[in-house]
């Protein structure tokens, strides 16, 4: 079975679902490890996934777990206020919901932990969606 491990299956296997960018996974891993709250995060994360999958664009109007990202139209974010203020910007498309980036929101302005910087990173990763959607 080893030879099949690297096969990337088409989006059809997940669609309509929620997918996560490989760099976002790495960022989240780092943030979770540093927070020391893996159990709390895992619980909060799956609850947000379920609610987002069900309510999509309307999720932000029902729960403060979600918000509209500043500076960019059509970009939203999951909020984990009690877990080091982690944010996960995402975009919703007809093909699925894409988790693009993870950061610890600590500053206004232009710093690496600001919404402005996070929006720039997320927008860059949106460009990966076409390729990703075609091959995995």
């Amino acid at each position: 079975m080893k030879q099949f491990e690297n096969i990337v299956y088409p989006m059809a296997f997940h669609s309509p679902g929620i997918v996560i960018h490989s760099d976002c996974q790495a960022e989240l891993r780092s943030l979770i490890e540093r927070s020391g709250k893996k159990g709390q995060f895992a619980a909060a994360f799956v609850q947000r996934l379920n609610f987002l999958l069900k309510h999509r664009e309307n999720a932000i109007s029902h729960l403060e777990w979600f918000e509209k990202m500043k500076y960019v139209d059509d970009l939203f974010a999951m909020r984990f206020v009690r877990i080091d203020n982690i944010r996960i910007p995402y975009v919703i498309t007809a093909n699925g919901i894409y988790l693009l980036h993870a950061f610890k929101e600590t500053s206004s302005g232009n710093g690496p932990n600001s919404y402005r910087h996070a929006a720039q990173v997320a927008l860059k990763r949106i460009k990966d969606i076409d390729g990703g959607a075609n091959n995995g």
Partner: protein
Amino acid sequence: MAETVWRSAYDFHDELMSEIDANNSDYVYYSALGRISTDLVEYRIQHGLSQIDLADVLGVSQAMVSKYESGDYNISLKSVVQLYSKLNLSLGHIFGTAEEKADDPIGDPGGRVFSPLRTGEPVPVYGPACDIA
């Protein structure tokens, strides 16, 4: 440059879960708070209620409803029982460990399409129950 790979967010969650005990007290506790939160929000949506409306039904302040819905508020067990009783909601699933799979018709969190090819699991056969002679 590393190739971008999009992966199911539920698979990422499953990976995290494989690194902690399913009975991890934080996981169980915050799962329960999250369920209470989504139960109240779903109730409001279903009945077309605002937080203020729900506060009136429950006999608490709107600020308290907001806290309940945050998923972080350390609500007492007694309060939970009282809330669910007033709303005629079932308490049964709050401390369950497999609740996330409840909404999925094919037994996979969030309604993902089951892929035995991807997971390597045996292909399940669905059909009416029957006695085997």
